[in-house]
C-alpha cells in the first residue's frame, strides 16, 4: 500500500535523470566549440562557448546586477499584480454566470491580442518608467492564472458544496475554505507557467523601451555586434527564468505539499 522511499532502481533513475542531460549538454558545448574553431566562424556571427564565457567578463559584476535587478523587478511586480487581480476575477467568474458571460469574452480578446504588438502602444500611452513594463508583464501573465483558478474552483466535488449549503455556511467561507483551497493545485500549475511568462513580458517591454535590464542589454549588445556579450545575457536570462520557476515549485512543495500529485510506485 504505502510506497517506499526511492531506493535501488529508483535511485539509479534519479541519478540518470541528472547524469544524462549533463552528458548531452557537455557534448553540445564541445561540438559547438570545435565547430566554431574548425570552420573559423567569426565571433560576431556565432561565438564559441569559450568566447561567451569571456563575454560575461566584458561587463562588471555591478552592471550585471543592475541589469538583472531591472528585469527581475518588472517581472516580479507584473507577476504580483497579476496574482492579486486574477484570483478575485476567477472567484467572480466561478461564482456568477452573469460575470462569466460579461468578462470572459473580454479576457479572451485581451489574451488573443499579441502583447508584443501592443507593447509599443502601451509605452506611448503610459510613458517612461517601470509602469508600462509592469503593465505589459501583467497582460502576458494574468490569463493562465484566471483560467486555472476558475477551473479549479469549478472542479470542487459537488458533495462538499452540498455539505457547505447544508450547514448554511456563509458563501465567503464556501469560497475561502472549500473552493479556493481546492483550486490550489490548478493555481500552482498556472503560477509556474506565468512566472516564466513574466520574464518574457519584462524582456519584451525592454526591447521596446528601456535603459536597463537584460532584454535591453541583449539588444544593445547585438546592435554593436558584441555577440558573445549578447549570448552571456541570454544565459543569464535563462538562469533567471529557471530559478524563478524553481522558487515557485519550492513554495508549493513547502507550503502546499498536499496539492502535489501523489508518488505512485
Amino acid at each position, binding site marked *: 500500500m504505502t510506497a517506499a522511499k526511492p531506493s535501488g532502481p529508483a535511485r539509479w533513475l534519479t541519478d540518470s535523470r541528472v547524469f544524462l542531460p549533463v552528458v548531452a549538454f557537455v557534448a553540445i558545448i564541445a561540438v559547438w566549440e570545435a565547430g566554431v574553431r574548425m570552420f573559423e566562424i567569426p565571433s560576431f556571427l556565432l561565438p564559441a562557448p569559450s568566447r561567451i564565457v569571456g563575454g560575461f567578463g566584458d561587463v562588471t559584476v555591478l552592471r550585471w546586477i543592475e541589469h538583472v535587478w531591472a528585469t527581475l523587478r518588472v517581472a516580479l511586480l507584473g507577476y504580483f499584480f497579476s496574482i492579486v487581480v486574477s484570483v478575485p476575477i476567477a472567484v467572480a467568474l466561478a461564482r456568477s454566470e452573469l460575470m462569466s458571460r460579461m468578462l470572459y469574452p473580454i479576457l479572451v480578446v485581451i489574451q488573443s491580442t499579441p502583447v508584443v504588438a501592443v507593447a509599443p502602444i502601451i509605452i506611448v500611452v503610459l510613458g517612461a518608467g517601470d509602469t508600462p513594463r509592469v503593465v505589459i508583464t501583467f497582460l502576458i501573465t494574468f490569463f493562465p492564472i484566471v483560467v486555472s483558478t476558475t477551473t479549479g474552483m469549478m472542479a470542487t*466535488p459537488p*458533495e462538499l458544496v*452540498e*455539505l457547505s*449549503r*447544508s450547514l*448554511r455556511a456563509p458563501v465567503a467561507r464556501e469560497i475561502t*475554505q472549500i473552493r479556493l*483551497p481546492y483550486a*490550489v493545485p490548478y493555481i500552482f500549475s498556472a503560477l509556474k507557467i506565468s512566472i516564466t511568462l513574466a520574464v518574457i513580458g519584462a524582456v519584451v517591454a525592454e526591447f521596446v523601451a528601456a535603459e536597463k535590464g537584460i532584454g535591453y542589454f541583449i539588444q544593445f549588445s547585438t546592435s554593436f555586434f558584441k555577440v558573445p556579450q549578447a549570448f552571456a545575457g541570454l544565459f543569464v536570462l535563462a538562469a533567471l527564468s529557471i530559478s524563478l520557476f524553481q522558487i515557485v515549485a519550492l513554495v508549493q512543495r513547502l507550503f502546499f505539499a498536499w496539492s502535489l500529485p501523489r508518488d505512485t510506485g
Partner: protein
Amino acid sequence: MPDTETVALRFRDVGHTFRTRGGADVQALSRVDLEIRRHEFVAVVGPSGCGKSTLLRLVAGLIRPTEGSVELFGRAITEPPDGVGIVFQKPTLLPWLSVLDNVLFPIRHKYGRPGDDHKAAAHDLIAMVGLEGFEDRMPEELSGGMQQRAAIARALLLDPDILLMDEPFSALDALTREEMGFELQGIWNRRPKTVLFITHSVNEAVLLSDRIFVMSARPGTIVETLDVGLPRPRSVDTTVLPEMHEMAAYLRSRLLKRDDAA
C-alpha cells in the same frame, strides 16, 4: 433509551420534478408518503436512478419538493435544517486538513473558530469511530474505510438528530463494507440517531435497519415497506439466521421482478 414514539420525518404526498440542462422536465419522485420515527434506522432500496438521493436531498433541505411537503419534527423543511448530518458515497474529506480538522470542519465552516468543547467532542467521535491515534494524519494516508469513518465522525460533530447516509459503504471492498456496517450499528447504539440509509445492497439493508422502504423506478415512489423483525444487536451470527436470508431473498426478488417489468 432510544425514543421511538416521536415522528421525526414525514413526507406528505411529495413529488419532485427537476429540469435538466437540456430543458427537459424529469419527474424524480412522485406521491411519496412516509413516516420515520425518531431513532429509527430506515433503509431505502431501489433501482438506480429511482430518486433515492433526491429523497435524501429533500431532507437535507438542499432541494425543495415541487409537490407536497417534507416535515422534520412537524415543521416543513424550507431551508437546510439544523440537526441533520450527511455522509456521502465518497468520504470527500478535505485533502489539506488533518483527520481532526476534517472532523471539526463543520464547526469551522458554520461558525468560524472551534471552541475547546468542540475539540473535545471531535476527539470523542474520532475515538468512537476507531481512529484514535490518527488525529494528525492526512486523509491520503488513510485507507478508504478509515476515510469514511472520519466522514461519519464529521457528520456526527454537530450532534444531529437525523443522519443521512447516501450509499456510504458502496465504494469499499466487501469485507470492509461488512465491518463498517457492524461498526455503524455500534455507533447507532451508543448515540441513537434517526438514520436514513440509502443502499444498493439488499443484505446491508436487512442487516442494519428496522424498516426498509422499497422504491420503484422513476418516477420513484414507495412501493413496499418491510419491517425487519430481526433481534438486536445484530452481529455476524445474525447473518446465518434463516429469517435474514428469507427477507433478503424476498427483497431481491421484489427488486428484480420490478426490473423485469420495467
